């Protein structure tokens, strides 16, 4: 099935190439490779919103192209190569699993610029970009601790990768900064995307007494369950307020637009260089949806924390003690980015075991 999707994707790339071949040569062509369908209303959807933002901001100076549903791994190489041959000035690989394929093609086409999201391998013509979602999760933790009547949140998660673990830890650090006894129940659904399972997990967590739901999965199912039960929760990736007008307190929105505009503009100006950017709330890459459905003082607190983070404060600032009581960072010490990107331990107070 994935092969077929790739074939379709490649065919699409052909079609796009054919259309754009006629376009004026002085236009910069910017190209995107997505791992999911742009209709997922989650990760790939948000990347595509970023592409549209580029079109809107830079107008007729650029033309854009994309291929969706590209299988991660070696197969992706063909899609990157096609884009490189078709005269794309800059190619964005938006998923972790494209890393090696993109790097290989980048080395083959030194004149084409590449950027890869959430990875760690780079080249003189291949830069890296990522978003500090954990900043938002710290704020969610504070809101949850203020708003939960039972000092208990339910947390639906996909896979035990550093990004997810980092999120759980940031959430708990935020919650504990308000209530040191705050508890979280964690349920792994072992899927990024299965609305049915996400809904079942949310129901199970609510049935066990949680009154706030947090998710690190992509669909709107969980927050819709919260809405139905008159309880609260947070949106993920996209602003889901339409799905839960009474339940969504805020959402961590991936807003790749600012970065994409900056990168494409830099190519146009001739100032682009392979960078390693990890942007957060300050840069607008992580965007908090409107604070709603919460007490005024909670909202004020959330806004203050957000301002503090914009001012340069890092939620992973010590003292931070891990699950076993070992001090990982002394008071005042900020966890280095490298540690965060490889995080495989829980902070104190998380009642769950990480599969090792």
């Amino acid at each position, binding site marked *: 099935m994935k092969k077929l999707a790739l074939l379709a994707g490649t065919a699409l790339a052909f079609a796009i190439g054919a259309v754009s071949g006629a376009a004026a040569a002085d236009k910069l062509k910017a190209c995107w490779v997505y791992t999911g369908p742009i*209709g997922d209303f989650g990760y790939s959807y948000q990347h595509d919103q970023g592409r549209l933002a580029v079109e809107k901001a830079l107008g007729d100076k650029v033309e854009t192209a994309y291929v969706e549903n590209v299988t991660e791994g070696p197969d992706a190489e063909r899609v990157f190569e096609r884009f490189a041959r078709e005269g794309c000035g800059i190619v964005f690989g938006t998923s972790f699993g494209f890393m090696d394929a993109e790097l290989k093609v980048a080395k083959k086409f030194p004149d084409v610029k590449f950027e890869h999201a959430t990875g760690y391998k780079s080249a003189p013509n291949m830069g890296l970009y990522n978003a500090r979602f954990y900043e938002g999760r710290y704020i969610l933790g504070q809101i949850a601790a203020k708003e939960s009547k039972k000092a208990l949140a339910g947390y639906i998660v996909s896979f035990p990768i550093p990004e997810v673990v980092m999120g759980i830890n940031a959430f708990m650090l935020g919650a504990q900064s308000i209530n040191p006894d705050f508890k979280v129940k964690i349920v792994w*659904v072992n899927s990024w995307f299965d*609305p*049915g399972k996400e809904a079942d997990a949310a129901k199970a967590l609510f049935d066990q007494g949680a009154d706030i739901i947090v998710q690190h999965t992509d669909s709107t199912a969980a927050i819709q369950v919260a809405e139905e039960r008159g309880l609260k929760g947070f949106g993920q990736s996209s602003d889901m307020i339409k799905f839960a007008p009474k339940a969504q307190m805020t959402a961590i929105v991936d807003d790749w637009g600012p970065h994409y505009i900056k990168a494409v503009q830099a190519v146009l100006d001739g100032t682009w260089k392979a960078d390693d950017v990890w942007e957060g709330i300050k840069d607008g890459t992580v965007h908090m949806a409107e604070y709603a459905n919460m007490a005024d003082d909670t909202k004020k607190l959330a806004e203050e924390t957000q301002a503090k983070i914009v001012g340069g404060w890092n939620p992973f600032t010590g003292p931070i003690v891990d699950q076993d009581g070992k001090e990982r960072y002394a008071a005042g010490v900020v966890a280095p980015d490298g540690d965060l990107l490889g995080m495989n331990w829980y902070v104190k107070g998380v009642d769950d075991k990480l599969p090792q």
Partner: protein
Amino acid sequence: MLEAILLTVVTAATPLLLAAIGELVVEKSGVLNLGVEGMMVMGAVAGFAVTITTGSPFLGVLGGAVAGVLVSLIFAFVTLTLVANQVASGLALTLFGLGLSGLIGESFVGQPGIKLQSLYIPGLTDLPFVGKLLFGQDILVYLSFASVFGVSWFLNRTRGGLILRAVGDNHASAHALGYPVIGVRYLAVMFGGAMAGLGGAYMSVAYTPLWVENMTAGRGWIALALVVFASWLPWRAVFGAYLFGTVTVLQFHAQALGIGFPSQFLSMLPYLATIVVLVAISGNRRATLFNTPASLGKPFVPDR
């Protein structure tokens, strides 16, 4: 707590049961349609689209069934009229359904759906414990059970059911006796399409009122497996669907309770439990063989 768990189990099991009952009838007629997932996802997108456009979840559910029938007709035409390979055609139907539903659904992504309301009978629904469970479900849950009754009665107690089983067991003999083999199979495949469409619509209208690509997430395949699990007996399909749903929901509860098992193992449990029970109940091989449609998956060309 038990009531809450049971309520969640019902929603998890219903789409599986609907699709499985449909496929059971298809297979009883001797046709193997592996396109259940594709028909389900088409039902999901059509159900959602009609619901949003008309504002009526009932019409949406109907739309889901119609979409399922339409897609199943493609399969029927290719495999029954053109006598193409059923396995390959079924797989192709799944791929086709996933692609087409994504295309149709593109403009519906990110729109909140309208949820199919649950039944409310004053007095009965308010009864403690059993009230919501028995009298507070949505119409598709009752329909799923009605279809089990109906199919069971049809297959075992009616002349039509006898003909269908005859066609599935030995199409040459059935043909020799003057029964319209192809016609019967067309009807069976359409019934399967309608039920899979309903199962899909249940996902996008009742279970999680939203549309996103590929939202059935493999449930069509589980429904297919349930038919074999049930050894083509409708009541066993109910048992299988509810067993699968129960273990799925219970493992989430186990995780939330912090039992401490690795979550990957717990995610595996529904499948494991189903396989274990399958092995246990298929101990009687003669009975299992007796229920298996002997012409399953074999193409039929009349004048040969």
